[in-house]
Structure formats: structure tokens, C-alpha cells
């Protein structure tokens, strides 16, 4: 029988496990692959496994566990057990570069590692630290929550660890459950990495909170097969993943809803997904807010996937320059780990200054229209909103890889051409003239002060974040 699950509100993973043992203990919680077939693990079995593992962890005498996330059942149980055992838990990308992992271990005081790959643990063991200093004051983790750290790549500075808790993550999942409730008949496919807060909350906790089953995706190798294997009804996806699924028509016929987040998404992509028979919802949030704070809710005929309703536990306001400010007592981060100045720069009182620009529509829905940090302030005091500016250039130079930078208060175009370092000066000049000619129409529509002042070439690929945004702050030359 189909039952609409009323979203429960949990304060800790311990409470979640208690509920799993007592309410519908036999209901499937997780679905994973074993011996080539999908296998179900019940709520009670999951709770028992986690509690046993937590007991074992308490006996280690360690303080901070780094989990190299692979999305497996073992990985999920380890994360829950670590939090239940009261350890500081740091979620890491198992596919990250060695040097980055070494730095992240050092930054967050990890003194023990978990990975399904023993070679990787062995490789990283020399970089383990003495752990975190034991707290002298008494601390009740059932009130404050256990710390779970996620790294944010950020778009303006190097990666920082954001301190969240099981409590804040569950509050964010509760938000999702209220906005987009799932039923006990639903199967949520978890394909996103668990070391990303969107993947952890919207790929895992959202389903758990609603009483749906969560199918654990089998990793990148199985992207093309997981839909037929698990027959999910709900999916959380980043825009790039959705684009891939739509392009290759991989979504199964049972799939009814896709929640898209963690990146900019084109209306064309969303409508292509809708044409393939799924409802699409768009979510906005940050690692700092434990994932989503505003979501579009499908249903009405005039549904606009980019018109976002603010979640029940959050309050959103716009500053005079349009910056989105968030107050979210239950979902807000504690801060950036060991970076109090960085925390103070964005978290003022109970308000998070997001660096994103938004506007309200006539129905009181939030629209995210860009990133404040993607604004170039020119020498004459005018500003360039980069997504719009670059879209104009993209239309004139289709298929070219480029970015726009500010140099000496003027906008400069940096074009990637891997041969450019070998060009003689005449060739460079000719190429520049050709590009200028191609851009003439686009530039002519802009005020003179906002027109490109220079066209530069580089033979190096542009440094990009995981979501494809150019890391402008890393480009120091030309």
C-alpha cells in the first residue's frame, strides 16, 4: 500500500537509527549491488550494523576520521558510525589528487582513515596527524551534533573545510522532505559523491528522512547502467550529469522526479529533461547551509523551475546590491574549520552573505541570477556581470575556450589556444585581429568602457572547479 510519509524531524544520526529500529524495521532502507544483483538492507539491519561499528570506533581512541568516499554501503555505514561514535568526520574525494588529499588530511587533523582501497590508505597514512585536541569542556553531542566536515571548492579562494553536523544535515534533509516529499514506494538513486553536501543530503538523507529506499549508485563506470539496474523513481543530479542522461536518453521509464542543484543550469536542459517524461525541480543552497535553502516545486501549469520557494527552516533576504542573505539557525555551518576570519567574513550575526545575486518575482519566489564574485568592477566604476558578458562573447566565438579577466581596471579576454606559445608575433597579431573582427558586433552593443581592451592568448587549459567554473583567482598571467 502506498503511504505518504510525513517527514519526521531528527536531531542526530543516533535518533535516526533508533527510529529505524522501532518504526517499520523491516522496510528496505538501502539497495546496493552484490554478486551482480540488487540487494536490500532493512532499516533495522542498517541501524544494527552502524551501532556495532560505532562501538568498535569508540575503542580506537581516535578523534578524527577521514572517509575517502566511494558511495558504497560500507562507506555510508562508516560515516554514520563515526558521527554516532562522536568522532569528527571529514568526507574526502577518493579520486582527488594525492597532494590535495595530503593537504586536506593535514588541514583537518585526521588521525585515522577509511577507504575501500587499502593501498590508498597505506599511501596516505604517513600524512595522518595527532588528531584534534580533546575538548576540555563537557559537550553533549546529542544537542550540538557531531561535526562532519565537507570541503568546498569555493569560487574565490582555495578549498576550505566547512563544519556541519549530523543535526544540521538532517535539518536540511527535513527541509527537502517538506518541500518535495517522497513516498515509501519511491527509490532515490544516489549517484553523486557523498563528499559533496548536495550528494550527501539530497542523494541520501532526503530519501532516508522520507522513508523511501535509497539505491547506492555503483560509480562512474555504471552511469549508463544504474537506471535499468535499480529502476529509481527519484534522482538528485548536478546539471552536467543531467545533461549526460538526457543526451544519451538513459533515464528509466519509472523515474518521475529529478532534483537538480549545485550548479547553473540552462532552461533548455530542464525542458529537454521534462520532454523525456520527468518532473524537474531546481534547488539552491550552499555547503555552508548544509545544502538547499530554496527549491522549485513542480505542480502548477505555469511552473517555472527557476522560481524557488524558500524552505521552512530558512529565511532569505536580499541586500541592497541584490546579494542573497540567508538565516538558517538549524542548517547553518558552525564555520570554516580553523579559519575564524574567513567565517567572520561571510557569517555576520546569524546572516550568511552568500556572494550570490538574486531577485524576487511577483509571486515572492527567489530567482538566483548570478554570483556577486563574478562581477568585474571597472576603473570607471561600472560593473560587468560576467555570465552575461561571457555569453555575449560565446555567441560570437562559438566553441572557443576563454575567460574574461580584469587587468588594470579594464576587461581583458583570455583565449585558450594550445599552439599560441609557438606563434611568431605576426601570427599572434593576425589571430588577434581575426578575433576582434568576430567580436565586433557583440562589443559594439556595449558602452565603450565595457568593451574588451585586450585579447590575450594562452596555451594552458583554464583552471576550473569541479562544476566547470573558471578559477579566475588562479590565473596570474598573462
Amino acid at each position, binding site marked *: 500500500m502506498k503511504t505518504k510519509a510525513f517527514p519526521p524531524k531528527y536531531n542526530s544520526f543516533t535518533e535516526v537509527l533508533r527510529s529505524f529500529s522501532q518504526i517499520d524495521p523491516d522496510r528496505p532502507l538501502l539497495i546496493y549491488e552484490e554478486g551482480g544483483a540488487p540487494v536490500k538492507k532493512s532499516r533495522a539491519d542498517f541501524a544494527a550494523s552502524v551501532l556495532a561499528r560505532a562501538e568498535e570506533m569508540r575503542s580506537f581512541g581516535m578523534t578524527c576520521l577521514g572517509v575517502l568516499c566511494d558511495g558504497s554501503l560500507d562507506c555510508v555505514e562508516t560515516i554514520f558510525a563515526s558521527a554516532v561514535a562522536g568522532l569528527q568526520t571529514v568526507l574526502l574525494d577518493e579520486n582527488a589528487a594525492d597532494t590535495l588529499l595530503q593537504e586536506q588530511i593535514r588541514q583537518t587533523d585526521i588521525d585515522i582513515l577509511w577507504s575501500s582501497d587499502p593501498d590508498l590508505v597505506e599511501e596516505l597514512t604517513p600524512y595522518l596527524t595527532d588528531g584534534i585536541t580533546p575538548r576540555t569542556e563537557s559537550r553533549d553531542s546529542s544537542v550540538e551534533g557531531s561535526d562532519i566536515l565537507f570541503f568546498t571548492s569555493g569560487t574565490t579562494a582555495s578549498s576550505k573545510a566547512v563544519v556541519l553536523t549530523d543535526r544540521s544535515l538532517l535539518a536540511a534533509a527535513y527541509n527537502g522532505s517538506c518541500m518535495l516529499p517522497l513516498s515509501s514506494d519511491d527509490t532515490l538513486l544516489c549517484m553523486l559523491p557523498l563528499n559533496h553536501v548536495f550528494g550527501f543530503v539530497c542523494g541520501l538523507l532526503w530519501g532516508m528522512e522520507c522513508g523511501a529506499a535509497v539505491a547506492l549508485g555503483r560509480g562512474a*563506470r555504471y552511469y549508463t547502467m544504474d537506471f535499468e539496474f535499480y529502476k529509481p523513481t527519484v534522482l538528485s543530479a548536478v546539471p552536467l550529469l543531467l545533461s549526460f542522461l538526457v543526451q544519451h536518453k538513459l533515464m528509466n521509464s519509472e523515474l518521475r522526479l529529478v532534483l537538480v542543484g549545485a550548479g547553473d543550469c540552462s532552461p533548455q536542459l530542464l525542458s529537454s529533461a521534462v520532454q523525456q517524461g520527468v518532473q524537474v525541480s531546481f534547488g539552491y543552497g550552499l555547503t555552508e547551509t548544509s545544502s538547499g535553502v530554496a527549491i522549485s516545486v513542480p505542480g502548477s501549469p505555469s511552473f517555472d523551475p527557476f522560481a524557488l520557494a524558500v524552505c521552512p527552516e530558512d529565511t532569505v533576504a536580499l541586500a541592497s546590491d541584490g546579494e542573497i542573505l540567508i538565516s538558517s539557525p538549524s542548517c547553518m555551518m558552525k564555520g570554516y574549520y580553523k579559519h575564524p576570519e574567513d567565517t567572520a567574513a561571510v557569517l555576520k550575526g546569524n546572516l550568511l552573505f552568500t556572494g550570490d545575486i538574486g531577485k524576487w518575482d511577483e509571486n515572492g519566489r527567489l530567482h538566483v541570477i548570478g554570483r556577486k564574485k563574478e562581477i568585474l568592477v571597472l576603473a570607471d566604476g561600472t560593473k560587468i556581470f560576467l555570465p552575461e558578458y561571457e555569453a555575449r562573447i560565446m555567441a560570437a566565438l562559438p566553441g572557443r575556450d576563454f575567460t574574461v579577466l580584469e587587468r588594470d581596471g579594464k576587461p581583458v579576454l583570455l583565449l*585558450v589556444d594550445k599552439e599560441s606559445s609557438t606563434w611568431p608575433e605576426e601570427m599572434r597579431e593576425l589571430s588577434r585581429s581575426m578575433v576582434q573582427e568576430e567580436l565586433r558586433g557583440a562589443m559594439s552593443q556595449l558602452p565603450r568602457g565595457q568593451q574588451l581592451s585586450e585579447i590575450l592568448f594562452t596555451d594552458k*587549459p583554464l583552471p576550473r572547479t569541479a562544476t566547470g567554473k573558471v578559477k579566475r583567482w588562479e590565473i596570474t598571467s598573462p
Partner: protein
Amino acid sequence: MERSKIVETCREVIYECVPDMEGQPLYEDTVINTDTAIDSMGFTMIICRLEARFDVKIPQRQWSKMSTFGDVVNAFDKRINRRF
């Protein structure tokens, strides 16, 4: 297996996965990210198909280290013709 055969299969699979690239030359030094229309998801698909075609596995941690078409060919060459 001859390296030339591996190169040929790699090209074939890329053109299969990204039909828009059909006819565009793929040299050993072609940079996947910036010289081709292959995005990270497309790259994943290509590697998976090549793994199936050659019946070898490239550890996922190495995927991001393959920058050029030549790197992809080398990675498979090394595993198919394992040299100790």
C-alpha cells in the same frame, strides 16, 4: 596488441560516443578538455566503453591524469601489453 590498433580503437570509440567529432582529427597531443567537445561525463563514457572493448580496467584515480588523447592510448597500452 599493436599500439596502432589501440589508437584506432580509441578513435573509433570516441567518434561513437561523441558523433559531433566525427571527421575531426585526434592526434596524440590533442588535449581532451580544450581541443575536443568531450566533457567530463563524455570522457567517463569513453573510458568505460574502452575498458569493455579491451577488457581491462583503468583505476578511476588515474582518469583525471589523462589529459591528451596520447595519455588515453598509453594508459590502455600499458594495461593491455602489461610490461613488468
